[in-house]
């Protein structure tokens, strides 16, 4: 029998319930108000009083309303048919809701239970299997969606029978398993998983050892992210966090992209689901929406469901990873989730930590980021979840608790700078502040040196040093005046500008420049480094300025032209001519 209770206290969406039986932390319950059931989650228990956060508006709720406890935590439904859907934080399918407005208490099925899938078995009778092992697969869009031994099953099982190749519904029996005690377990295509628990149905989680292409020069060339790695993008508003995340979601070399819009603008989600069905995936040529899942809890949707949305996104990502796929999760923004935690902690009158955030915010963030990773599955296949979150620091100040906690957890740091954004140098990733810890991994260094070319990592370091020296020269010029410094200072400064304009800056709104594949990046980077390594004679600093401005213009035209087209070659020869006209020696 279900535990029930009655509402005794209400403050905004925090409700206190007097219960008549056992309740557990994070248990889901439904509060009935005028026949409408409002989903809620237990966040604190003291004696027979449970504090629950309601995932909906509590308007009109009264003391005495009935509460029914469900006996399980917040779970996601995992099954074929998740792909290409647009969910809210509680995994309601937003496309299937008829009304213009999201009426509270309306929940629907996350997948289509009537859909018929073509199943191909891969497991055999008598196989020993554990949680996460593949029984067979169905075609979901273009992916092989594996049907797995449910993650919840503990220990090992013997396969008693597997369904024959054929057409089935998700609820049909796909396999029967027998445990050591001889008890039979039915496996269907659907399983449920509590979102706050990490899926660990894999053999091992090695250190990431290869990079993931994003098509962005400032990332791939300068601070690459590893497949199965973590990164975060903090930045003040207007610095281009969202544009950057969109660019990554469109171009990244991944099988599955999960976009978690957490407490952000609804129009940004609209942009995704309007554009993605039309745009091509640059890697497969299929439509982007075919590989994309959106979980959205926009800023005006109930605050408590924000947290649910990031966890739901992660759990779905882990599910696809267990199929041996390369998953990329983008969450915009994790600060909104932290703020939701803060609102609730405040209402519970907990003692506040820094800036009013709960004391354990740092632990919550790092255990969440830890769920990403590259894994080896039991059958030898590999899969990965790469996670990139944005952080919206209050006042653009990176010394705030969410940014600081995330910095400890994530390995790539893409700091967006207001100064770069103000001078329209997009993406505004600050080349000096930002880093990729992966560049220090020997396995990643080996990968880069063999994937691009020998000496690639050294070249990155060299370019970064040049950039830094250029900035220093610029400061000297500003202090001493154009005429007050040797001409080399100008040359040095302009070389850093060349790197900035040609490599770091990228026009997200240009059809060609927005996505720069790695071979093109390699060519461009080498071309720019060749110029940087050469020394030139200039009559005076104005002459120097003109020379580099012309060169930057030619290089930028290359970025705007189709790779290896006649136009591209024309601008390239313009660059070469220009270089030859001034060049003295190679440095």
């Amino acid at each position: 029998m279900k535990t029930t209770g009655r509402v005794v206290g209400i403050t905004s969406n925090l409700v206190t319930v007097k219960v008549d039986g056992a309740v557990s932390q994070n248990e889901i319950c439904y509060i009935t108000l005028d026949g409408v059931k409002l989903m809620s989650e237990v966040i604190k228990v003291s004696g027979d009083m449970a504090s629950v956060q309601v995932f909906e508006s509590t308007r009109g709720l009264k003391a005495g309303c009935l509460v029914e406890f469900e006996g399980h935590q917040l779970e996601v439904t995992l099954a074929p048919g998740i792909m290409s859907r647009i969910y809210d934080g509680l995994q309601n399918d937003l496309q299937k809701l008829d009304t213009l407005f999201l009426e509270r208490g309306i929940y629907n099925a996350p997948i289509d239970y009537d859909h018929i899938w073509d199943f191909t078995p891969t497991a055999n009778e008598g196989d020993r299997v554990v949680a996460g092992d593949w029984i067979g697969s169905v075609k979901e869009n273009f992916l092989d969606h594996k049907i797995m031994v449910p993650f919840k099953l503990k220990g090992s099982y013997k396969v008693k029978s597997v369904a024959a190749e054929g057409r089935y519904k998700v609820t049909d029996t796909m396999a029967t398993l027998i445990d050591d005690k001889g008890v039979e377990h039915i496996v269907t295509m659907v399983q449920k998983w509590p979102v706050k628990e990490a899926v660990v149905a894999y053999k091992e989680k090695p250190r990431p050892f290869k990079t993931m292409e994003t098509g962005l020069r400032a990332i791939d060339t300068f601070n690459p992210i590893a497949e199965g790695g973590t990164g975060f993008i903090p930045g003040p508003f207007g610095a281009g966090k969202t544009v950057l995340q969109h660019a990554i979601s469109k171009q990244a070399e991944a099988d599955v992209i999960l976009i978690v819009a957490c407490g952000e603008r609804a129009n940004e989600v609209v942009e995704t689901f309007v554009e993605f069905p039309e745009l091509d995936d640059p890697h497969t040529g299929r439509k982007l929406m075919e590989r994309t899942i959106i979980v959205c809890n926009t800023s005006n949707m109930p605050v408590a469901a924000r947290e649910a949305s990031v966890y739901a996104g992660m759990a779905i990502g882990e599910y696809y990873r267990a199929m041996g796929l390369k998953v990329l999760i983008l969450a915009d923004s994790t600060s909104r989730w932290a703020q939701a935690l803060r609102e609730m902690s405040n209402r519970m009158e907990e003692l506040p930590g820094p800036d009013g955030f709960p004391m354990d915010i740092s632990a919550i963030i790092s255990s969440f980021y830890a769920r990403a990773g590259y894994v080896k599955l039991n059958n030898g296949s590999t899969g990965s979840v790469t996670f990139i979150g944005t952080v919206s620091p209050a006042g653009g100040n990176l010394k705030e608790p969410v940014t600081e906690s995330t910095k400890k957890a994530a390995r790539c740091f893409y700091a967006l700078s207001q100064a770069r954004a103000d001078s329209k140098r997009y993406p505004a990733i600050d080349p000096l502040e930002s880093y990729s810890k992966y560049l220090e991994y020997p396995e990643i260094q080996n990968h880069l040196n063999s994937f691009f070319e020998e000496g690639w990592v050294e070249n990155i370091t060299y370019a970064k040093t040049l950039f830094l020296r250029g900035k220093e020269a610029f400061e000297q010029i500003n202090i001493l005046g154009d005429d007050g410094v040797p001409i080399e200072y100008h040359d040095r400064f302009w070389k850093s500008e060349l790197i900035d304009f040609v490599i770091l800056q990228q026009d997200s709104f240009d059809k060609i420049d927005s996505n720069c594949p790695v071979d093109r990046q390699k060519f461009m980077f080498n071309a720019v480094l060749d110029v940087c390594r050469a020394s030139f004679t200039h009559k005076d600093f104005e002459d120097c300025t003109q020379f580099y401005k012309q060169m930057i213009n030619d290089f930028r035209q290359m970025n705007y032209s189709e790779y290896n087209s006649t136009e591209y070659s024309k601008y390239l020869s313009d660059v070469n001519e220009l270089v030859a006209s001034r060049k003295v020696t190679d440095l």
Partner: protein
Amino acid sequence: METKAFQKIYTKIDNITKATVTVRASDIGIDELATVNGRLAQVVRIDGSEITLQVFSGTEGISTSSEVIFQGEPPKLKVGDDLAGRIFNAYGEPLFGSKEVVGEAREIGGPTINPYKRLQPSEFIPTGIAGIDLNNALVSGQKIPFFADPDQPYNQVMANVALRAKADKIILGGMGITNDDFLYFKNVFENAGALERIVFFVNTTENPPVERLLVPDMALTAAEYFAVDKNEKVLVLLTDMTLYADALAIVSNRMDQIPSKDSMPGSLYSDLAKIYEKAVQLPGGGSITIVAVTTLSGGDITHAVPDNTGYITEGQLFLRKDSDTGKVIVDPFRSLSRLKQLVIGKKTREDHPQVMNAAVRLFADAASAKTKLENGFDLTDYDERTLKFAFDYSNDLLSIDVNIDVTQMLDTAWALFSKYFKKSEVAIKEELVNKYWK
């Protein structure tokens, strides 16, 4: 408020604070309205039978034996076509002796629109102001605030935007505006013969501050009526959102909540987002566009109110006085319209995006030249030219007194480019330069 049948009346108040009263009652819903000694109040906390009510106009003079009458429903606004052309107070009651609106009473602060049902904003809203149209084009369904110091003419600019924006309805939510500003808006709209398209919800400085909290929801409920039910293009003006946030802070303080940054409540982001996210492009053709004002203190955008606002809205418009031309301009560096990409070069001429960027870049070069000059360094020929360009650009384009269409703005920009620069210095795609260079 009239009394209705079956209302529960209580006459024993247990606690009174500056803003709240507590009374023992049963079967009361959260957010429900009540009157306390005739003053409007709302249920904000329920603890067993203890009901805490926030009295909007304050609790001065309320006695423990004052009458508390529960209305059994949350705040509502009567919506109908005759909302138009009228002025209401924060409770949605008509002012200046006009009669009650005939129509359905709707809960304010209603549910969210399913994001999947939204359309992508795609209609350009020309304002004639080049600092906006050229550099920060507005799009229907957008939400954007003016970030301005109190001494800047934001209300005038907003009134101009409203009149030129060709909206079917203009809904003005005035929060803590001075009576003078209120009369200014009223006169401007009256003189333009636009009063019939306008709905006012006003809380002036003469009214209690907490009442302000109802204004945005009232205004947006009216907006949703026209946009959703009538498929109209609605422009909502909210001034001043900083004063709204101040009222939130007052309430949260009186409710003993732990303040977060700048003494603002921890829920400030969500509170503001609920308002701004009502901006929408609807499938039926209607739209709600929100132009708001967030006043700054000494231009500080790191304060919690502008900071949270910036994360919610789709850009922001900064006004500043240009010291060279002496005119108020829309600052091209700090202003941003996030939705402009949806219309510029698509609904406007193809060269719009590149012209916009090139002009701003040259304007930035002028700013560095100016710094050089101030530091006593010699200027190069290029520096000199950028300074001349900057003056003309401010005067002919950025200034808020400009009123021309977008094509004229682009032509003006090209004319300035060719007057002061070489083609290579402007760094625009060659095919565009060949076509438009003057």
